[in-house]
């Protein structure tokens, strides 16, 4: 359904005065050669730490951020070559749910106007009654019932969970097929998280949706996705079926990450072994050539100074590491 090929998003980085005189230009390589596919009806979790480029990837696919290069094929068309009008059509099929439900809703709009906005800007319905019914249905879909109670309210009058439901209703009202969910529950309380994740799963089944689920939380990815792609500094380190990646990570970075994920079980937490790595994730400016993880990798060798390619080492499992070969 969706195929991303060698996607790159570079932002010009601030250079010092002297550097600019010398004609040095530096780039933040937020996304630097990312490729993956998502099948219809599948949930792919894009997991990474801050600065890994996961959100940038998600937004670049929808062209909310213009990619520097690459291809994004959606139902047979390259999204990156669409003109303005075609892009508008595309956005009826591909939508996004943002991380922060406190910021993604216009504080001066009513819930009705927020949810109706996609209908209005795309001129979906001719009559106000049709629009009203569609908004009511969308609010029912996200279990904000009775919808009449919510339509005239403002975002600040709703709880965090309710706001995220509104954001989901807005994303779904055009009946898209593909949704980028950018950390949809990370700002919510734990008891609300599960409600929203359940809702997203129900809606996925009901409307046959496909999700790109962006998260920093591997445990959450495990519960919500069919496959996981792990990103580090703008590149994908490993892709594979969720359960296999979690129980048997192949890439050293994934191994390290999984060994540090906090476990909500004190006994298991005590008994597991953490893999020690030096330092912290650097910023994606002026990265050295070779494997991104090489400077910190506990298993690094000489060969790692060359850039590894993402290759299939076992059926369905793709790893970008010189040391992991089939």
């Amino acid at each position, binding site marked *: 359904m969706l195929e991303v090929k060698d996607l790159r998003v570079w932002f010009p980085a601030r250079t010092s005065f002297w550097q600019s005189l010398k004609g040095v230009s530096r780039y933040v390589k937020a996304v630097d050669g990312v490729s993956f596919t998502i099948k219809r009806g599948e949930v792919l979790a894009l997991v990474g730490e801050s600065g890994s480029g996961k959100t940038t990837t998600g937004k670049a696919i*929808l062209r*909310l951020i213009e990619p520097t290069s690459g291809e994004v094929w959606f139902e047979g068309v390259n999204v990156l070559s669409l003109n303005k009008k075609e892009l*508008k059509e595309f*956005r*009826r099929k591909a*939508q*996004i749910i*943002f991380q*922060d439900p406190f*910021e*993604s*809703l*216009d*504080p*001066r*709009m*009513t819930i*009705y106007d927020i949810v109706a*906005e*996609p209908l209005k*800007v*795309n001129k979906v319905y001719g009559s*106000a*009654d049709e*629009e*009203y019914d569609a908004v009511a249905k969308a609010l029912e879909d996200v279990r904000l019932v009775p919808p009449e109670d919510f*339509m*005239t309210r403002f975002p600040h009058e709703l709880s965090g969970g309710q706001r995220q439901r509104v*954001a989901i209703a*807005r*994303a779904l009202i*055009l009946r898209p097929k593909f949704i980028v969910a950018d950390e949809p529950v990370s700002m919510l309380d734990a008891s609300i998280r599960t409600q929203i994740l359940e809702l997203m799963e129900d809606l996925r089944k009901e409307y046959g949706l496909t999700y790109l689920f962006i998260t920093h939380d591997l445990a959450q990815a495990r519960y919500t996705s069919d496959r996981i792609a792990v990103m580090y500094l703008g590149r994908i380190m490993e892709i594979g079926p969720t359960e296999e990646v979690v129980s048997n990570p192949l890439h050293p970075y994934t191994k390290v990450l999984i060994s540090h994920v906090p476990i909500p079980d004190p006994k298991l937490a005590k008994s597991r072994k953490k893999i020690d790595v030096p330092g912290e994730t650097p910023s994606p400016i002026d990265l050295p050539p070779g494997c991104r993880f090489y400077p910190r990798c506990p298993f690094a060798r000489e060969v790692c100074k060359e850039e590894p390619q993402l290759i299939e080492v076992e059926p369905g499992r793709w790893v970008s590491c010189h040391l992991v070969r089939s």
Partner: protein
Amino acid sequence: MKGLKLRLRVLRRRVSNFWRIYRTSKLGLAGLAIILGYVALAVMAPYITPYDPFESVALPFEEPSPQHPLGTDHLGRDLLSELIYGTRVSLMIGLTASFISVMIGTTVGLIAGFFGGKVDTVLMRLTDTFIQMPQLPLMLIFVSILGKGILNIVLAISVVAWTASARIARSLTLSLKERPFVEAARAVGAGSFQILWRHIVPNVFPVIFAYANIAVVDAILSESFLSFIGFGDPRTPSWGMILYFASRSGAMSNGFWWFVIPPGLMIMTLALGFAITNYSLDQVLNPRLRRR
């Protein structure tokens, strides 16, 4: 039908929400009361004035008396009547001049902030030019070119005063356009003008609305000053005009206080009314300033 009912419900809620918070501000209520008092005075002028403000009805420079509570001016006109009619002029000029200047400024600021780049540079340099020019001489030049008369005074004030709202609107727009809800609107297919109209304008409006009160104060003071130094329209009895005649006829040196103090007080009180209304509106419309 359902949609219309919904709109009405929303409108009612917006008004009642606003009033619920505004009500808690004593200062704001006082400001509003002052403004409403002046509006009533302006509307009712023909019915409550004891004399025709253009007619000589007594001897010049009469002291306050039961017949003429605020005395008479240099032509023997009733000063109380003149003051009440003056409310019409001052309010009208204050409101229209601030409306025009805020409209110009907001439009310039919105366009500059939202589209950025060259548009921004050109519009903002223009704004800076206006800011750097001394305001009073500029107004005087405009009035001299356009000629006397209320409308020309309004235009002169607007042309000078729009820059502040342009700056405010621009800086708000710059921060608003980076907010996630704008990105969300873009994601559902909204174009630039739709975003500007549906999201930026409604969020800029409350702040500008609060600011417009200050613009009214400025306009009222500017009008009074222009009239006072002789650039006003002698046929309209504005407060500044009364002061102009008072100074021309030597009311100050002769101790005719009733010719000077009442119009001064009228100007100050109305300006104060708008100023404290602005302060309270700021509190209500910008929740960040609101005390928890």
